[in-house]
């Protein structure tokens, strides 16, 4: 990770802790200004705007409301600010899409994607190594692997849906994901994975 990225990570962890400790609106605005445009882009990659022009902006509002409410649960030893906010955005996207669909059930995304009980003392070190490595390697991936990784992680598409969209066999999608993941995780000792 570059010096700048490490500083960002530190900076936004401090901001989240300020929101939790004293409901600091300046800190909250700094988080909004940095992450808001990323959450909106994520909403657009997920195709939310096809279901309503206002939905990507709605996602930003819902995610930031959750950041405000749950700032006290952020723990820098367990997750980077970007990872924590990404998981909130993923869960809010799931709930938002479910509200719009005719299919309903009583289980909220937070009931299913709730891994808070998992305290890992080395989580921060491990995560920062992974993120540094991924950032460095991402640009060395062959274009077809990079494209697929971006799709499976951010575009709200299952492997099967990515295969249909790109008109590729499911096995090809899976093997490209597998190859890309191997490269992105190389250099982390096998024992750590």
């Amino acid at each position, binding site marked *: 990770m570059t010096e700048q990225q490490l500083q960002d990570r530190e900076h936004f962890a401090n901001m989240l802790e300020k929101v939790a400790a004293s409901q600091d609106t300046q800190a909250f605005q700094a988080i*909004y200004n940095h992450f808001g445009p990323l959450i909106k882009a994520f909403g657009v990659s997920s195709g939310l705007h096809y279901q309503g022009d206002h939905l990507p902006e709605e996602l*930003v509002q819902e995610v930031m409301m959750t950041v405000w409410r749950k700032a006290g649960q952020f723990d820098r030893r367990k997750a980077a600010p970007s990872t924590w906010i990404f998981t909130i955005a993923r869960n809010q996207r799931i709930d938002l899409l479910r509200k719009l669909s005719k299919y309903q059930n009583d289980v909220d995304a937070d009931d299913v994607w709730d891994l808070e009980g998992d305290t890992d003392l080395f989580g921060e070190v491990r995560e920062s190594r992974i993120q540094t490595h991924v950032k460095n390697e991402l640009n060395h991936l062959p274009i077809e692997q990079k494209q697929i990784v971006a799709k499976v992680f*951010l575009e709200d598409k299952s492997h099967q849906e990515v295969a249909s969209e790109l008109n590729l066999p499911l096995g090809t999608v899976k093997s490209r994901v*597998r190859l890309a993941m191997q490269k992105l995780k190389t250099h982390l000792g096998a024992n750590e994975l």
Partner: protein
Amino acid sequence: MSNWHPTNDQLLEFASGTGSSAMSIAISTHLHFCQACRHQVHDNESMAAVLFEEQTRADLAGDGFDRLMSRIQNEPTVSAPKAPKAPSRFPPVIEKLIHKDTESLDWRSPMKNLRVSQLLKDETGLILGLHHMKSGGRVPHHTHRGNEISVVIEGGFSDEMGSYGPGDFIHLAGEHFHSPQADADGDCWLLSLVEAPVKLTGPLGWLVNPFLKP
């Protein structure tokens, strides 16, 4: 720590939130028991966060922050860290689906020594069910109409392929012919995930043979 796990693809779809509801619940149940897979999901989330941060930023509406703050004014308290959950018998998401207690569910008994109750049918047609085998009970030989995933949530059972305990996430192919037997020292409770029988190609991506009897 369990011995049978979801595939890497399934864990990745879980981390990116693209799996179906029932599949995600089954994986979440496995994660409740399996630290290794929890770590892998967290690694996947960390990777996703890198891609998330590298996106091209989208312009926000000019009044976005003001709207947000006026909503927040109506609920000014920042919540304290969540109190630890009361210990529950099954993983919390399963408790929520059961609602009250297992005896209030609607049970049917398709085979000797086995009773089943449907917990949920999801948007892709996957059916999530709860299976209960009496301690030591053997279910007669049968094959499955489609492919099936079982996750042990209490007790254990064995079949011709192996023996399974809490958290084990078992993929059973459609042609798999078996006669599971619950362990003698306690009842066995399983979560099961099957394709709805009407589909020819199910959401698990396997071809379901409509001519096989359950």
